[in-house]
């Protein structure tokens, strides 16, 4: 009878590691909920009352002496810049947290081994550790991007806000969703390598800073540049409100060379056979190609970091 009672009759219910992840990282979950709530609230304020007041102030006719648009416009600009700064800074926070609290501290305390000596394999443990925050981050950042786009499309104050401003560009599309995931993967990898909370924190920070810098530098070059050419009199001829790339001089043969005459006299261009100037730029119509290629690049690096983390863990454990 006892053997009947203990014999498994069906495939046992699998462990629910995701619930343990939520239980263990409740402070981070609360922080994330507050973060999303705060940024959403500020964006909605800027879209509603803040934006209406700013638009009204902007339309107010100038007096003879001065054009005082009042604080309403300042608050409006401050509101979205604040949100953009938080959205841009989020990946750094995620990398710090993933390197230390999520992974590094667990390995340092031996609590990772406690989890692995329950019925969860190290690989499934890491999967839950990454999947739960990734899902919550994606949900939150998607909401913030949608709200930011709503605000940007309304554009209640016509001046002072450009699609190509770095924070604005990021927060208007999937790049803002992808970067926190990269931070998560790199932080986790750093935590796994470091085996310590503090070292994982520093490693996550450095890895994330390096990767985001390199991707930020490479990103605009992955989409073919438009080239604006001006003659000697016009000088550089990129339109305004664009993403700027390289620039230089054009010779009579049509070659693009670095401008040898910066600050030199008027005779210099002729001496170097220079007939005009070129500038590379991305117009606003390139918004989606730029967003999508950079997002793809970020996600590719994220996938590599994740694969490295799983490989490392599999080699260490049985």
């Amino acid at each position, binding site marked *: 009878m006892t053997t009947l009672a*203990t014999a498994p009759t069906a495939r*046992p*219910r*699998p*462990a*629910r*590691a995701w*619930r*343990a992840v939520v*239980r*263990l990282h409740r402070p981070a979950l609360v922080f994330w909920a507050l973060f999303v709530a705060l940024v959403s609230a500020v964006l909605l304020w800027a879209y509603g009352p803040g934006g209406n007041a700013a638009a009204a102030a902007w339309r107010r006719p100038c007096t003879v002496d001065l054009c005082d648009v009042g604080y309403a416009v300042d608050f409006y600009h401050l509101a979205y810049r604040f949100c953009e700064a938080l959205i841009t800074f989020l990946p750094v926070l995620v990398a710090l947290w993933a390197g230390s609290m999520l992974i590094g501290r667990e390995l340092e*305390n*031996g*609590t990772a*081994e*406690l*989890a*692995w*000596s*329950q*019925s*969860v*394999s190290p690989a499934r443990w890491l999967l839950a550790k990454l999947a739960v925050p990734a899902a919550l981050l994606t949900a939150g950042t998607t909401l913030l991007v949608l709200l930011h786009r709503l605000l940007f499309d309304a554009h209640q104050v016509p001046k002072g806000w450009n699609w190509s401003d770095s924070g604005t560009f990021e927060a208007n599309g999937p790049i803002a969703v992808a970067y926190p995931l990269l931070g998560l993967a790199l932080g986790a990898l750093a935590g796994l390598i470091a085996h310590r909370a503090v070292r994982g924190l520093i490693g996550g920070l450095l890895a994330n800073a390096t990767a985001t810098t390199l991707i930020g530098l490479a990103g605009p070059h992955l989409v073919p540049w438009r080239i604006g050419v001006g003659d000697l009199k016009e000088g550089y001829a990129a339109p305004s409100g664009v993403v700027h790339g390289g620039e230089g001089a054009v010779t009579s043969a049509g070659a693009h060379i670095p401008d040898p005459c910066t600050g030199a006299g008027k005779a210099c261009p002729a001496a170097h056979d220079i007939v005009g100037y070129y500038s590379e730029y991305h117009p606003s119509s390139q918004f989606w190609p730029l967003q999508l290629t950079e997002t793809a690049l970020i996600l590719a690096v994220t996938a590599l970091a994740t694969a490295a983390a799983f490989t490392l863990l599999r*080699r*260490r*454990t*049985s």
Partner: protein
Amino acid sequence: MTGTAAIEAAALGKRFGRRGGWALRDCAFRLPAGRVCAVVGPNGAGKSTLLALAAGLLAPSEGEITVLGGRPGAARERVSYVAQDKPLYPQLTVAETLRMGADLNTDRWDASVAERVVADGDLNPKSNIRALSGGQRTRVALALALAKRPELLLLDEPMADLDPLARHQMMGLLMAQAAESGTTIVMSSHVLAELEDSCDHLLLVDGGQVRIAGEIDELLAAHRRVSAPADTVLDAHTVVESRTTGRQLTALIRPLAPLAADWQTGTPTLEELVLSYLRNPQAPTTKTPETVA
């Protein structure tokens, strides 16, 4: 006995780092199921490494280890392991820790077992793990380990930070588990006395190798402590240790032939046996037949 082995190791080795020393090397033994096994040996002998390998927390550098008939990782659901420093999540309460145990296990998990183990220790489920004493932490860690209803229970230095009363209670808990469910229990310690009364099987690990493996009774019966004149030749037997003081020779041997009638002989205690092997690293390895992998 031909039943399944709880643990079986062949040419097992583990080294940390590519150039690090070997924590374990050339380990071969077989632990039959249903035993209560003491893993003894000096500090740094490789006991913890051996248990972590069996728990599937480390990958062997060479050789093989089989647990309950399969890869250690595949037996995870049926094996419990309590690490030496009893890691627990300090930010959780006792009750939350037990709920986490339920999350991290399949429906083999028996919440009533965990609750009973915790309640028997007069632990308030609402107290924070951070606030517990060493003995209370051990109890919570054991509650997690027992509620899995394991077939194999691996305990690394389980008694190290317990006072004598708590030690006695804990041992009672474990022995009840072994008796009720037939769980194989493997406990390590560098203090033999802690385990001597409760265990029926011994694994002596020293210098990264298994020096003795077998049922304690059989091991004791296989050895003799002899006192004989100093000029006695013991070549007919396997000599673990021999010392000459004055005209007297005292030795611990594994007799391979009948002993001379004029020798004084006796059965060694387990402690004498273990110490003789530890003092004499050149002494041959002893394994009873059922423990040969």
